[in-house]
């Protein structure tokens, strides 16, 4: 098979081919680079190409596969992409922001380090909304990303580059981060699987913080099993992240084939409220019927505070971000706007270094924490967060997992949503999951006028394997995840 023939194949397929001798890691890398170089000029998914690193990793993977054979880690030799919010030692890491241009961290994020140790071949850093703030990737300081299904449309965000890199069949796997939906929503819009593990499952060490109590790293893939492979590799305790869960991740893939017969799946009625696109609604309803057909017990449930979750999120996340982004002062790294005085340097460095959305959220968060407003905003939002977590906990006493739309709409045209509030509504159905720290996965569940829609599965805390199992069960009898974006090589 020609090198380009590996484009669009799953990681599981690639891993089998590597072991059967059908292809080498070096060959897979050539295929991925070829596809990347052919389409990324139009797509804009990559910010940095790590070809030297990748070549060395592929050569090492081939040696390891020759040496260890079937015992080599499943991800050995598989090409991957990493969202540019995760540090890789010596590789420029910008978080999509001008203020970090040129920054080369002296250390590697735990999640990326675990992938590299397993022999994965990282071919580059992907574009994203600046500091992971956005739902369309239009907030990147380095230009927008096209949706592989329609280059005039957004890929979603903030992990738009990672979703597009997988959706455009450049790499079978990519890492993203999800603070309010930044993995699941772009996965939905790009027709790929996106998984946000339980908060604490994957170490945040080396993940450039947006909102520390909400951020979580997770994978993009063509299928649930591939996502589980990545999760098994990157998950588990890390002493360098104090919020890291001590529990072992376990054998997640062993759970995937167990089906949904007898499982109680809740359908939260608030997730089908006004604002949900009719086409998306139909896709999700059909998907739910499919699960019912597989033996799941479907039950309507209520999460009454869903609408308030968006409000709570837009206090908590900006508050944390206003503090997390205070370190970008032009003293130790990144861009500095030279000024005669330190004070002027702070003001100009941060004004010129940050984009409009980042400044908006820093302003909002600073305000919400400032003297006289803390109780009315921040404290109240923290209480609403408690209510939201309780509502989930209460619902999970009656159902095993929840199924709902991921994004209220399919991909929208680049430039369409200039009003911040309308953009914020993109994440209305993913945000509550972050506030409660739950696992959530989005799987492709249909096309609306040729654009993908996603089904979201939400499970209780630490029941990551269950969320993936429900998604895998749906995937087993549908072929939406096998549809590939019609992004040709010719312009």
């Amino acid at each position, binding site marked *: 098979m020609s090198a380009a023939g590996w484009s669009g194949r799953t990681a599981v397929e690639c891993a089998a081919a590597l072991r059967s001798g059908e292809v080498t890691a070096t060959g897979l890398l050539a295929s991925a680079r070829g596809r990347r170089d052919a389409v990324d000029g139009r797509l804009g998914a990559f910010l940095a190409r790590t070809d030297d690193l990748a070549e060395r990793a592929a050569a090492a993977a081939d040696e390891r596969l020759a040496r260890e054979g079937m015992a080599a880690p499943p991800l050995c030799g598989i090409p991957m992409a990493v969202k540019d919010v995760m540090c890789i030692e010596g590789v420029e890491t910008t978080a999509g922001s001008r203020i970090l241009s*040129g920054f*080369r961290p*002296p250390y590697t994020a735990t999640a990326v380090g675990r992938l590299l140790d397993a022999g994965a071949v990282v071919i580059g850093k992907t574009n994203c909304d600046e500091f992971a703030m956005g739902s369309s990737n239009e907030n990147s300081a380095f230009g927008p990303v096209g949706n592989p299904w329609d280059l005039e449309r957004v890929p979603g965000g903030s992990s738009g580059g990672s979703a597009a890199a997988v959706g455009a069949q450049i790499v079978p796997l990519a890492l993203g981060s999800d603070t309010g939906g930044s993995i699941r929503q772009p996965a939905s819009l790009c027709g790929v699987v996106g998984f946000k593990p339980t*908060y*604490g499952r994957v170490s945040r060490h080396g993940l450039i913080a947006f909102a520390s*109590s909400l951020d979580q790293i997770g994978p993009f893939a063509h299928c649930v099993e591939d996502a589980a492979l990545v999760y098994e590799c990157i998950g588990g305790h890390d*002493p360098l992240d*104090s*919020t890291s*869960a001590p529990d072992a991740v376990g054998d997640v893939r062993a759970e995937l084939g167990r089906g949904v017969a007898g499982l109680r799946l809740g359908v939260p009625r608030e997730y089908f409220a006004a604002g949900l696109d009719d086409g998306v609604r139909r896709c999700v309803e059909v998907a739910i019927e499919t699960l019912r057909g597989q033996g799941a017990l479907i039950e309507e449930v209520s999460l009454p*505070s869903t*609408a*308030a979750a*968006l*409000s709570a999120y*837009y*206090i908590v996340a900006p508050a944390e971000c*206003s503090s997390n982004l*205070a370190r970008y*002062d*032009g*003293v*130790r*790294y*990144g*861009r*500095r706007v030279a*000024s*005669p*005085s*330190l*004070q*002027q340097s*702070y*003001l*100009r460095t*941060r*004004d010129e270094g940050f984009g409009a959305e980042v*400044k*908006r959220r820093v*302003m*909002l968060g*600073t*305000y919400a924490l*400032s003297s006289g407003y803390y109780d009315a905003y921040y*404290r*109240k*939002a*923290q*209480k*609403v*967060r*408690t*209510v939201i*977590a309780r509502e989930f906990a209460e619902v999970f006493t009656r159902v095993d997992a929840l199924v709902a739309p991921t994004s209220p709409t399919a991909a929208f045209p680049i430039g369409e949503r200039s009003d*911040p*509030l309308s953009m*914020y509504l993109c994440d209305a159905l993913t945000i509550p999951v972050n506030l*409660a*720290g739950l696992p959530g996965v989005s799987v492709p569940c249909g096309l609306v006028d040729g654009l993908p829609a996603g089904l979201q599965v939400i499970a209780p805390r630490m029941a990551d394997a269950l969320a993936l199992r429900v998604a895998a069960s749906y995937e087993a009898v549908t072929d939406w995840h096998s549809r590939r974006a019609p992004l040709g090589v010719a312009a």
Partner: protein
Amino acid sequence: MQLSPEDVAHVALLARLGLSEAEQERLRAELEAILDHIKALDAVGIEGVGETAQVTGLVNVWRADEPRPSLDAAAALGNAPEADGAHFVVGAIQE
């Protein structure tokens, strides 16, 4: 929610954002709209409800007091916009 230009200027200074007047005015309007939307918080009954700052339920996460090697100073200074070979350098602190 009404925000005065002074409110916006104060918050911008706290956040060390040297915003232009036009940018401040645009942000004032946007923040007002967002804060109005955030009023949805008031619909939730929070009487007697505790605050959630973290969701893991973990407590007492700590490490043993054992020193480990630091970065070497060259690596520490490697990304500095301005350094003198040993220190980070900043401009005049008082104007």
